[in-house]
């Protein structure tokens, strides 16, 4: 029993065997049945109904012209703005904030006929690696509810992992799509920076944030990516280059491709089970005709500290607008300063405060050169090392996370939490595309294989991932106790 993919559901919709409204109702029921995991913050019922109707009309008018996402239910992370639907970024400070506009990525999905069902839980302002920083409570991993689903897009990973919706949207600033995908045993794709518009994404770190999908197959990730990607006049950092047709490339296989294995990513610190699963995956890729090449990315060890300068610096400014003056929480005090202090003091959680303080410090007069400027230089070095690696290889393959999903409460020390993202962060710093796909189990928990491509090499990444997926069965593995929600035999 495996839940259906976007492709499978689409075929049934086109054959008239089901309707968008029926799929939406099934998805909503499935999400409700996993509420004890707490992956959903709210349902989009009014919008769901409207959009299901729109999808039904699109299918009725022209089943051929309706794209692969038409009528397909999905959930999205609580940092993406949709007109009329509360968006709180997992934070008390934005509780009750209802955006008067819809962001570009979701607008493109709506235009493709996809049907939103729910808004998913996440770490507050996407800051975290376990979803335990959500102001609205943690999320359980469908594979073991006592463990974390990863973060920050934990809710989005969990709902796909449990089979409740065929896809969901997350955002990835330092690994926030790939790491939870790895922990929950699903595909999680972070496109090239600038490939998907950030307009409507509540910013954590603007130069690193990117929207991407969680799916049950690489092909589905390609469908969702294709629908969202491309230049957006509202986001000046989107690439003006046309999006290459991903679908045709994805199925070409890896025979003849050169795949790099970064030595530093296979170093000590990997859990033995993770190492074993990834080594087996590498062997599989070799069997499929790829040539494996060891490469070196020596600046990797500096990536984490670089990230923890740049991301907090940007967030310290991005979160300044949460001041209680125009929207969200407002704690009324006699003076302006006290109103600021109390609103932000009560509205933000401890991790968000920590990062605002870190960033404010790093940008302060007298410290800027030592921290921020230095970090920018290292960031350039890291990007250049990747560029050099891609001169000799088509893609890089490595673990997504050095560990599998850990028990809730296990990493109360911030630094040990930050270390979870050591293998995903360099990809954001360099603006590269990366995907995590399931490649085995360790202690009965999913392990993720990460594929990294050169800038705008999104199709290459999907191609390698798809080849591996087609040759293995890990993607079909379901959490032991999960209800296969939209499930019919496949």
């Amino acid at each position, binding site marked *: 029993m495996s839940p259906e993919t976007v492709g499978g559901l689409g075929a049934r919709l086109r054959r008239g065997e089901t309707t968008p409204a029926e799929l939406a109702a099934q998805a909503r029921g499935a999400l409700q049945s996993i509420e004890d995991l707490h992956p959903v913050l709210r349902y989009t019922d009014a919008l769901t109904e409207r959009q299901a109707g729109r999808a039904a009309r699109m299918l009725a008018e022209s089943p051929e012209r309706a794209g692969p996402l038409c009528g397909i239910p999905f959930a999205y992370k609580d*940092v*993406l*703005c949709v007109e009329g639907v509360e*968006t709180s*970024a997992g934070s008390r400070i*934005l509780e009750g*904030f209802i*955006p*008067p*506009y819809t*962001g570009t990525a979701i607008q493109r999905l709506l235009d493709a006929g996809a049907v939103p069902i729910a808004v998913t839980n996440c770490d507050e302002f996407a800051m975290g690696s376990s979803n335990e920083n959500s102001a609205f409570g943690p999320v359980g991993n469908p594979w073991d509810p006592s463990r974390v689903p990863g973060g920050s897009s934990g809710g989005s990973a969990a709902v796909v992992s449990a089979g409740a919706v065929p896809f969901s949207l997350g955002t990835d600033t330092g690994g926030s799509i790939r790491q939870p995908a790895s922990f929950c045993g699903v595909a999680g794709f972070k496109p090239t920076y600038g490939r998907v518009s*950030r*307009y*409507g*994404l*509540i*910013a954590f*770190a*603007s*130069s690193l944030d990117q929207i991407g999908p969680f799916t049950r197959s690489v092909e589905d990730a390609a469908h969702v990516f294709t629908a969202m990607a491309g230049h957006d*006049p*509202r*986001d*000046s*950092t989107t690439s003006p280059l046309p999006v290459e047709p991903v679908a045709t490339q994805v199925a070409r296989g890896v025979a003849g491709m050169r795949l790099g294995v970064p030595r530093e990513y296979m170093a000590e610190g990997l859990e033995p089970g993770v190492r074993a699963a990834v080594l087996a995956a590498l062997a599989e890729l070799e069997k499929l005709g790829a040539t494996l090449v060891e490469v070196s990315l020596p600046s990797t060890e500096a990536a984490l500290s670089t990230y923890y300068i740049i991301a907090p*610096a*940007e967030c*310290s*400014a991005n*979160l*300044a*607008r*949460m*001041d209680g*003056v*125009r*929207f969200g929480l407002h704690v009324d005090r006699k*003076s*302006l*300063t006290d109103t*600021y202090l109390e609103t932000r003091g009560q509205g933000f959680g401890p991790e968000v405060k920590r990062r605002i303080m870190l960033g*404010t410090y790093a*940008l*302060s*007069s007298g410290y*800027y050169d030592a921290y*921020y400027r230095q970090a920018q230089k290292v960031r350039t070095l890291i990007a250049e090392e990747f560029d050099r690696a891609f001169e000799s290889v088509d893609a890089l393959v490595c673990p997504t996370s050095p560990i599998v999903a850990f028990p809730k409460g296990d990493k109360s020390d911030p630094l040990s939490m930050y270390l979870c993202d050591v293998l995903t962060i360099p990809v954001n710093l360099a603006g590269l595309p990366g995907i995590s796909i399931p490649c085995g189990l360790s202690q009965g928990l999913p392990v993720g294989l990460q594929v990294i491509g050169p800038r705008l090499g999104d199709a290459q990444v999907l191609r390698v991932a798809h080849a591996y997926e087609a040759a293995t069965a890990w993607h079909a593995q379901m959490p032991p106790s999960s209800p296969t929600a939209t499930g019919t035999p496949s």
Partner: protein
Amino acid sequence: MTSTSAVSTLDQVMERWEPVIGLEVHGQLLTRSKMFCGCSADYIGSPPNSNTCPVCLGLPGVLPVMNRVAVEYTVRSALALNCEIPEHSKFDRKNYFYPDLPKGYQISQWDMPLSLNGHLTFTVDGEEVRCGITRVHLEEDTGTLQHAGDILQQARSSVVDLNRAGVPLMEIVGEPDLRTPAQAREYLVRLRQILVYIGVNDGNLEQGSFRCDANISLRKHGDTGLGVKVEVKNMNSFRAVHRALEFEIVRQGRLLDQGQTIAQETRGWVEAKGATISQRSKEYAHDYRYFPEPDLPPLRLSAEFVDRVRAGLPELPQQLAERLQREHGLSAYDAANLTAEREDARAFEALVAAGVPAKAAANWLMGEVARLARETHTPLQGSGLGLEGLASLVKLVEAGSINGSTAKELLEELYLAGGDPAAVVRERGLGQVSDQAELERLVDAVIAENPAAVADFQGGKEQALQRLVGGVMKATSGRADARVVTGLLRERLAR
């Protein structure tokens, strides 16, 4: 000697101390839309917070998109101020909390501005002054606040209006090259004139579309170091700038004379008190934590773009004044006056092109027309009379068809109402009485009726002649040529 220095006058202070003044000017750009969104940049008169959108309200999730015209206007301004335009520039975030700043940061430019190293030269009291311009950069304006009390922190309640938030704002940072309030004032007058000429700013100090902050410190004559500087704000007229600087010079001079130190601070000019007062506003320490704006890619301006903007620059006021002197023989004074506003210079050239002699055109424009324009708040070009009407009126005078006073009356009457001066003169018979026999008859009559005045004149009282001239003018309802009448009277009485 402290007792006398405590009451030092401006002149006394300036004998002992040399003021060092640098001005920062902010000018709103006359673009159609705001700096980073599609809202109108013309926000005056909109109901509060109506001229806004998610972007300029700083809602979560929105992104800025650069207004290309604002970049072009800034480059145009920088070129008019002799600046260099680097190929690469970028935008930065300037971070501070204030309710009129929706994002909690202002998008501005820090270490890579659009332009650098310009200058402005002008003349004060016959002396040429050259003031360096450090940079001209581009940023966004803030919203506006209204609150009871002088500063927000003490206000009971405040209201925020974000209609102005995000309007393109150009900052022109001047070097501390100015030494007197008069120089500072003239710098501002010239700067404003240039910005208005090139069509990037409307130069309205009162409404704040052209604003100025001043940095001022004092030092001993001959010193090359700089004293502790004070920033002065809230000056919304040229006169206010002049007065505030004079006040600061005296205030600082007296403190220094008493051996006190100057506090580095921001002070606000209070017009009603005629004084600056210390302000405790915004942040206590100014650490704006600038860093590159990640939402906007760095800007690259090609040499072709810069050349195109340069080629599109209109004639600047100084060049125009020099040309008017050269081509029309105007005095430097007249030329400077006529070029103060570009429209005046245009009107002058149009009148001359229509056949009006240059001197007459200049006199009419700077005299009667300027007065009427001021009194009626209507520029000549927008008046009923218009340029053509004025040309026709002045030509009637030049041809001797009507006299000067008739022309002034007609100008006043037709300025707003409009009409063809030649036709009005014909219809009302306002033409000058030029029939020699008729004039002689009237002169004789006036002499006969005023024996006392005649006696006075012949007794040596020159001004008695004016009474007789007045008599003739009255008899012709003012239509005689006073010079001709005076000539005739002298001729008759000399016999």
